[in-house]
């Protein structure tokens, strides 16, 4: 099992390795942990404005967007936000609510674009749409609840930065989904879990 190498979403999964059978909770936990690790890495990168997020934490969601079912993608998004809230300690603050709203909007839009566009839309396009959705929701919430109506002026540069970040993260996700052995393994195991459930 070395590469997904253009494997289509409906293709037969790779056989699982010997050893204990994974559960959906295992897959969600590891993917959420990778998302939190990515957000830790992002923390180290200097940004033009402190509120801006590049969105590396969305990489696990993106590489699984054509693999996972919709409800499992939402579960992964919730697990990611919950884990970030607990580990960073922001669970009881507005940061958590903003993050939750942005992530859920982003996942909903990414699922919609992926389903509607099929293989005609790359992960770059899906990621950009998700980044825009997340930024629109977060900027709207900021304007409504924190900064006040005059702060709409910050929306255009934020959305522009969001597009740039979305393209970059989408490109990285495209590369990983084609080349990563780990992504291939998770993909194969997920499909076996679904087969085992008879769905």
């Amino acid at each position, binding site marked *: 099992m070395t590469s997904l190498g253009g494997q289509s979403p409906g293709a037969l999964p790779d056989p699982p390795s010997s050893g204990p059978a994974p559960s959906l909770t295992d897959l969600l936990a*590891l993917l959420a*942990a990778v998302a939190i690790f990515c957000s830790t890495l992002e923390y180290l990168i200097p940004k033009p404005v402190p509120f801006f997020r590049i969105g590396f934490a969305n990489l696990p969601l993106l590489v699984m967007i054509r693999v996972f079912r919709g409800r499992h993608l939402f579960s992964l998004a919730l697990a990611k936000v919950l884990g970030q809230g607990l580990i960073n*300690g922001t*669970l009881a*603050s507005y940061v958590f609510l903003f993050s939750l709203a942005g992530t859920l909007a982003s996942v909903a839009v990414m699922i919609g674009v992926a389903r509607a566009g099929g293989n005609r839309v790359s992960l770059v396009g899906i990621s950009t749409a998700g980044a825009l959705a997340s930024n629109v929701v977060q900027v709207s919430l900021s304007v409504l609840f924190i900064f006040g109506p005059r702060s709409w002026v910050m929306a255009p540069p934020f959305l522009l930065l969001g597009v740039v970040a979305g393209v970059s993260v989408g490109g990285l996700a495209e590369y990983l989904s084609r080349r990563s052995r780990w992504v291939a393994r998770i993909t194969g195991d997920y499909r076996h879990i679904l087969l085992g459930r008879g769905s």
Partner: protein
Amino acid sequence: MSLRRQHPWMLRNISARTLFLGGMALLPAYLLQENLTIRFVQVLFFGWCALRAGKRLQWAYFLTIIATITLFHLLIPSGRVLVTLGMLRITRGGLETGLFKALTVVGLVFISLASVRADLRLPGRAGTLAGKIFWSFEQIMERRDQLEPRRLLASGDDLLLGVYEDLLLGGELPSDTLARKGTARRSSLPGSLVVSGIVVLQWVALLGGFF
């Protein structure tokens, strides 16, 4: 992010559950507070609590938040003009509203940082999932030295496949992760008293203003 920076006394005497419940109990008193001076003192105090809880505070980030929120509220003039800077009239109402809102937002983050600890147990399936997330995250952080810049993808794959295999094998139970070792499962009497005292203090500061 880890518990390793947390003050040892807190780890030994205050459980994650007590800390979280304490944070939730003082939240209404904090939010209902309307006095700007008390709000300022609260923010400083909760910032100190967050530091004692082992959290790293990015002061530049919080100062930028305060400055930005205040600036946007200054654009809506209200009340007496304090000073005029070119086109901008700094009014007392705008300044107070902006500062109050900014301090409230920053204080909320500090309360959350101080009261939410990585070993907080959530009930049910969410708790099982959270335990596995923490275990996996700790494993990734511990093995991150295995990442090689020259072969980032291959070494990253090896690292994640290794963590995945260990997760499937059960290995260390998620509930006994490194994050939980040496932390209080139940709060001691002094620990409970400290948390209760902080909660009572916030309510006294609020109710004192009404009488």
